[in-house]
């Protein structure tokens, strides 16, 4: 099994970090993973993308034209990636910033009011973790606990103090999906 995911948003929205946590979790769970950002002099202020591949096999191409999952944090990213998601795939978007009417019928959409939720948790910068939690819950790609553990394992010492609040954010994102699914 191989899953290709794209994360995209403004620089500063924690896009790259969200993808990296997922990659760590995949690696710790014995998967092959690749994480490759777009990079450029316009990073700041511009748009940041990252492609994450999680696979049971050796990963050839770390890039994909048609991801199974796209996670978009702003309108330009929505515009860019909505069409690319592979049929049957999933598009998760930050509905705090994106007001969107789905164009496609052949993919699933998941609206996560990530900034609102994160804001309520007291730190708007954790929107990315909210989305990641939702992603995990919606795809079952990895156990949520694996992602939590990845934070514990790999956040540098100086940042370990944020682990707990990040985990709460992950949880909220996951809960949101569970509630939706329950609904």
């Amino acid at each position, binding site marked *: 099994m191989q899953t290709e995911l794209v994360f995209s948003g403004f620089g500063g929205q924690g896009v790259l970090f969200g993808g990296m946590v997922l990659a760590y979790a995949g690696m710790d769970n014995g998967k092959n993973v*690749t994480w*490759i950002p777009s990079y450029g002099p316009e990073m700041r202020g511009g748009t940041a993308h990252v492609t994450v591949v999680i696979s049971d096999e050796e990963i*050839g191409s770390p890039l994909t034209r048609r991801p199974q999952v796209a996670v978009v944090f702003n309108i330009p990213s929505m515009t860019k990636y909505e069409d690319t998601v592979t049929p049957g795939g999933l598009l998760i978007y930050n509905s705090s910033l994106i007001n969107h009417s789905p164009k496609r019928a052949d993919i699933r959409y998941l609206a996560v009011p990530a900034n609102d939720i994160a804001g309520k948790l007291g730190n708007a910068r954790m929107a990315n973790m909210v989305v990641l939690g939702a992603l995990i819950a919606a795809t079952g790609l990895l156990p949520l606990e694996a992602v939590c553990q990845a934070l514990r394992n790999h956040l540098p010492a100086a940042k370990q103090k944020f682990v707990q609040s990040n985990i709460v954010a992950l949880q909220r994102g996951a809960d949101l999906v569970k509630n939706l699914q329950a609904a």
Partner: protein
Amino acid sequence: MAKELLKGNVAIAEAAVRAGLQAYFGYPITPQTELLEHMSARMPELGRTFLQAESEVAAINMVYGAASTGVRVMTSSSGPGISLMQEGLSYIAGSEVPAVIVDIMRGGPGLGNIQPAQSDYNQITKSAGHGDFRPIVLAPGTVQEAIDHTVLAFDLADKYRTLVFVAGDGMIGQIMEPAELPPMRQPAQTRPAWALTGADNRPKNVVSSLYLGAEKLEALNKRLQAKLQQIKENEVRFEAINTADADIVIVAFGTAGRIAKTAVTEARRQGLRVGLFRPVTLFPFPSSQLEKLAARTKAMLVVEMNAGQMVDDVKLAVNGKTPVQFYGRTGGAVALPDEILDQIILLDKRYPAKKATPNGQGVVISVA
């Protein structure tokens, strides 16, 4: 050691440190800058030399100086910086001191952009600046290979007293994937006999590329060519996947090579007999290995992230024994598996299967 999630640039830097690197001189340039930054933290911590040079010209000449003392030394850069190093590279080649250069290629020509590319293939494999020399060029396709090649690069550099390039691209530099670092080796405590360390109780040593008089310089060149010949005989490395029964062989290196793997897998899934031949050493180029394959394949498809450079080496290797087709993307664009697959399908339709001929020699078809 356990695998870690490592960024290519950082992995190369740390691998070099662990291979006993004594000195690093470099100048920032995207997409290799994390390499220099890692060095700036690690080398002083270990009491070794890190210096951000004023330019790539200075960097390569500092490398030249440090290399003259027989320590392990490296620099890293990308297209524009590598161009500025050409004179220094030629001096290093002519002086026969060992040095390792990492080139994380980006789109060109000129300032171009910072997306991944392989467009410096000719520049780094066909010469080391002016003059007749050619460096060893290793082309990793994964972070693990980037690590392994870096260590190998130092060993080869020392063994042959030569220049070795580790040639990645922006993708290899920027990707993170799990990989294992080598154990830490300390810089060698002794220095080679030729090294500049002070003429204490021995005749003086000289490091120079100046040989006035054609006979003397020709003698140097003969020695260098003999060395290159030896390298050709002993240091060819490549990866061949599914080539045994392949009708079509894709030839691709580095990032293009690893991406082509996905295309090959998909092609096999569709029932096409496709293989992948991935040169790991770009110089020495695995010519005879490719030539052997040529006899059996109905066509070869060379995929590069440039306008067609390695393709000439492939053609030289197969020497007309099989058609060679090229597919390339330029300017930082990357050929994705689906495009490569399209090319495979086209090729498969265009060429009839090859009948085995007596001496294993195929029918020769001229290629445009």
